[in-house]
């Protein structure tokens, strides 16, 4: 009937918006295709994403070619990961209270804003923004000069204000990528969809025995970066490697300590499977995975579950669900179906408005960007090609460097690579620059210093030796002023009784200065050139003390020589040079 049709259409035009109109035209919600009708000049940035219905696989064009996996032949697995990384800032994202460590007493880091007291207002902590920007640069994202904050509403005891402030519609950064090395195959590029700033929640624990909830607001309002990947991973191993690489990036940028056990890095993993050559399947999201091992196990279980479902129900698709992971059975379980998905009632935050980043601030961040582990590696190899033969030690150095404690607000806590570089090229207080052999320095660092620290159950951050102290110690050994054995002893001593004294002074005090082989040898040895007679007398004393060995040596048994030398070395407490002792003993016995 034309008349009734007209009524409907005019009603739609007036009372309802163009959104319904679009539904009418296309029959169902498909993709964002029609431009905004004229007359709506005002379009907040949030509109764009808001109206794109679940674009997850919709605009899917596979950048990866299918590769058969013998564990699930004929199936393609598609994985995308959302990572929540706690920002390592002194203060929370929107309040003045200090961030907390997991073992802090409950509710000791709380301001009225964190507890959602009436009359409180948020204020963006610029340090959090800077750290997220660093991360965005490291992930090669496009940075939004204007981003905004939105409120995501839900009622739960870990959310005092009833909403979480996040960046749903206009995130801080978009369209990045991360190159991920996987063992035994070529590197994979995972595209980063976006990075958004948001608040962490409080911690609530329900005690079923007493039927009470305990709420700890320490974590409430801590800054998080939500890093969303595109569905570019194809196996549990790639997913694991992605998270590990991302972790290294975050740590290198100082933006998060990326500690999964302590919950400062959490992952939600989206998994779908489809027959080879077919369209992508329906994804399921596994929430809150807190170790790489669990991530891989959860994906493996999902692949098994989803392929079994598809085989048992030919022609249908896997029901879209949000799932949890049981750390005991290593299986995923259903949390809620798509129909039960909560309506978060997103709303632009009326207090925070638009976060405007000036070009100069962005450039400043870019200029001060810390190096990534692999960038440090190639820089070191370029500068010191001789390290190419010591790749294992170099990797130890880089691992320790990336494993260092991440400082607050992006402050560098001083990594071992920087220490290494300063040792190789030390600018001394007197203006001189001392250059040292990088291979020797690397050996001292990785074998001696890091080895000693590990033995003492310490980390590099506990290292008490300054660059000039360790440098001088290495120089003493290199110039044979002290022996290698004495050098190691001196290092141990300086670690256990730290002081600001120079190694030379300490070595002298400990009587570690080497015994010169002859008066003419080693003129630099602190005016103790007359010590040669001491070595002479030590050797003579050895010959007296070991008559049978001396007799055997005279008889031609040269193996005994080592024993005599060893005796002298012991008597000298490591100060003697083994070669010199050997020559002197041979001379005396002859």
């Amino acid at each position, binding site marked *: 009937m034309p008349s009734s049709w007209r009524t409907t259409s005019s009603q739609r035009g007036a009372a*309802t*918006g163009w*959104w*319904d109109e679009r539904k009418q035209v296309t029959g169902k919600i498909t993709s964002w295709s029609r431009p905004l009708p004229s007359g*709506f000049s*005002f379009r*907040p940035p949030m*509109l764009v994403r*808001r*109206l794109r219905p679940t674009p997850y696989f919709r605009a899917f064009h596979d950048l990866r070619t299918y590769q058969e996996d013998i564990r699930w032949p004929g199936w393609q697995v598609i994985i995308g990961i959302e990572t929540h990384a706690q920002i390592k800032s002194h203060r929370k994202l929107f309040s003045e209270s200090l961030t907390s460590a997991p073992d802090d007493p409950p509710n000791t880091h709380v301001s*009225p804003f964190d*507890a*959602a*007291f*009436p*009359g*409180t*207002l*948020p*204020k*963006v902590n610029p340090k959090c923004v800077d750290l997220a920007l660093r991360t965005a640069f490291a992930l090669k994202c496009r940075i939004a000069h204007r981003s905004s904050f939105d*409120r995501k*509403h839900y*009622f*739960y*005891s870990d959310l*005092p*204000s*009833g*909403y979480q402030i996040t960046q749903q519609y206009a995130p801080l950064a978009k369209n990045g990528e991360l190159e991920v090395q996987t063992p035994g195959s070529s590197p994979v590029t995972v595209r980063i969809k976006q990075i958004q700033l948001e608040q962490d929640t409080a911690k609530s624990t*329900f005690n079923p025995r007493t*039927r009470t909830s305990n*709420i700890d607001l320490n974590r409430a309002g801590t800054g998080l970066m939500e890093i969303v990947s595109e569905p570019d991973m194809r196996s549990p191993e790639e997913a694991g490697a992605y998270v590990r690489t991302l972790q290294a990036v975050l740590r290198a940028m100082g933006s998060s300590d990326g500690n999964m056990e302590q919950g400062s890095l959490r992952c939600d993993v989206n998994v779908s499977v489809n027959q080879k050559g077919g369209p992508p399947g329906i994804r399921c999201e596994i929430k809150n995975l807190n170790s790489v091992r669990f991530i891989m196990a959860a994906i493996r279980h999902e692949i098994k579950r989803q392929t079994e479902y598809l085989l048992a129900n030919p022609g249908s698709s896997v029901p879209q669900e949000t799932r949890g992971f049981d750390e005991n059975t290593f299986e995923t379980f259903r949390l809620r179906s798509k129909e039960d998905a909560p*309506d978060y*009632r*997103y*709303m632009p935050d*009326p*207090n*925070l*408005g*638009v976060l405007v980043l000036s070009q100069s601030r962005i450039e400043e961040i870019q200029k001060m960007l810390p190096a990534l582990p692999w960038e440090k590696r190639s820089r070191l190899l370029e500068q010191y090609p001789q390290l190419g033969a010591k790749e294992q030690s170099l990797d130890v150095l880089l691992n320790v460097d990336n494993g260092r404690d991440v400082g607050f607000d992006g402050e560098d806590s001083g990594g071992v690579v920087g220490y290494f570089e300063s040792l190789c090229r030390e600018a001394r207080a007197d203006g001189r620059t001392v250059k040292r052999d990088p291979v020797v320095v690397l050996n001292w660092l990785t074998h001696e210093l890091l080895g000693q620290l590990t033995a003492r159950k310490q980390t590099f951050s506990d290292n008490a030796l300054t660059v000039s102290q360790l440098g001088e110690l290495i120089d003493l050994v290199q110039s044979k002023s002290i022996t290698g054995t004495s050098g190691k002893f001196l290092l141990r001593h300086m670690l256990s009784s730290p002081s600001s004294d120079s190694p030379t002074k300490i070595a002298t005090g400990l009587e570690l200065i080497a015994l010169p082989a002859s008066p003419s040898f080693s003129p630099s040895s602190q005016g103790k050139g007359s010590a040669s007679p001491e070595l002479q007398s030590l050797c003579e004393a050895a010959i007296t003390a070991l008559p049978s060995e001396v007799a055997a040596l005279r008889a031609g048994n040269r193996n005994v020589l080592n024993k005599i030398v060893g005796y002298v070395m012991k008597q000298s407490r490591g100060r003697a040079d083994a070669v010199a002792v050997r020559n002197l003993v041979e001379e005396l016995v002859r």
Partner: protein
Amino acid sequence: MLRGFTSPFDATVVSLLQDSGADVIGKTNCDEFGMGSLNIHSCHGPVWNPVNQDCATDSLEARSAGGSSGGSAAAVAAGLCDAALGTDTGGSVRLPASYCGVVGLKPSYGLISRWGVVSYADSLDCVGILASDVDTTERIFHTLAVFDALDPTAAPLGLRKEVYQSTEKRLSSINFAKSNSLEGLRVGIPQEYFPSELSTEIIQQLRNVVSELRLRGAMIIPISLPSTSYALSSYYVLASAEASSNLARYDGVQYGSYVKPPPGTDITKTSNVYAQSRTAGFGEEVQKRILLGTYALSADAFDNYFLQAQRVRQLIKEDFNHVFAIPNHYSDSPVMTSSKSPKVDVLLHPSAIRTAPLLNEVSSGASDLSAYVQDVLTVPASLAGLPALSVPVKDSDRESERWPVGISVVGQWGTDEMVLAIGKVVQDLYRES
């Protein structure tokens, strides 16, 4: 919900007043969470309008003080204090001022700190000032309108200086001092601010003011703000949406009243626990607006309600920007200057559609929608964040027991000084005669 609640900190406005030597003598009644136009939605009962107290000896004759900041307006009108603070989200300072015959200022959004103000709708909430005359209002405004780093929406210092200078420049071109002359002043009368519900008595009062201003040399210019008719709908969608969000925090967990769930409730579901306290703690009007706002933000309604309301709000801002001579310094969208419409310094319109209604009349629930229609004259300035001042006008020709009428002066964002200056002129029209 917040009965017995004591905030652990002082609001910035309270500290500023105390630092300047003011005595804070008490708290006043208001509509619950600022939601209401008549101050009848309060757990302490309605506020009685103190004007013409003699005829209001029994509750049948009691009139409303207006809302939501009715207690503040009544306290000033009754002479209990020199001035009072209120909050104005959609007219909650100007309307009670009009009903009680006192001066009420809603300053430009962002000039006075909101730190410590219980949020109703953050993008609209303003701290307002109620006082017996414009001079007192001005003194308090100058004390309070300072930048506060605790308020993220506070106008930055540079912007304040900029707009202050352009206001001063414009004001100096109008020579007030010279024999009461208003030559050079351009006053706009918006045609959309005369709804059919507006009482003829009030129209007459406005006419008197307008002719007086014209006599002094001011140019009276009829103007049009075409989007005004959508303002009320836009306001109620946006304010309710923000309220549903802001009031989500009142769950009885951290503070406020808590109602224990009855035995047998499944307390593993948070919502079951919260529902008890929220049902018992919120009044009827608040619940109504929370539900409305929650709906406006739901996925199905968001586009047609919240976004649509935001678009309307933008149109209303543009309407105002078209008619004011001074550009809007606060908005970050480019100012359109090409418009052919005549430019004005201030707008003049009635503050309310009627004088204070009988409490008996309004609490019966008979005039359900009229309570909202009352806001029609005040919400556009709130949506656009503009300064608006309600000044009482008294017609000396009539008997003194008439109920007060307020006239609103509205200016461009940040021109609060000009609005106060013109308000003083309007006030003095009656003082001198």
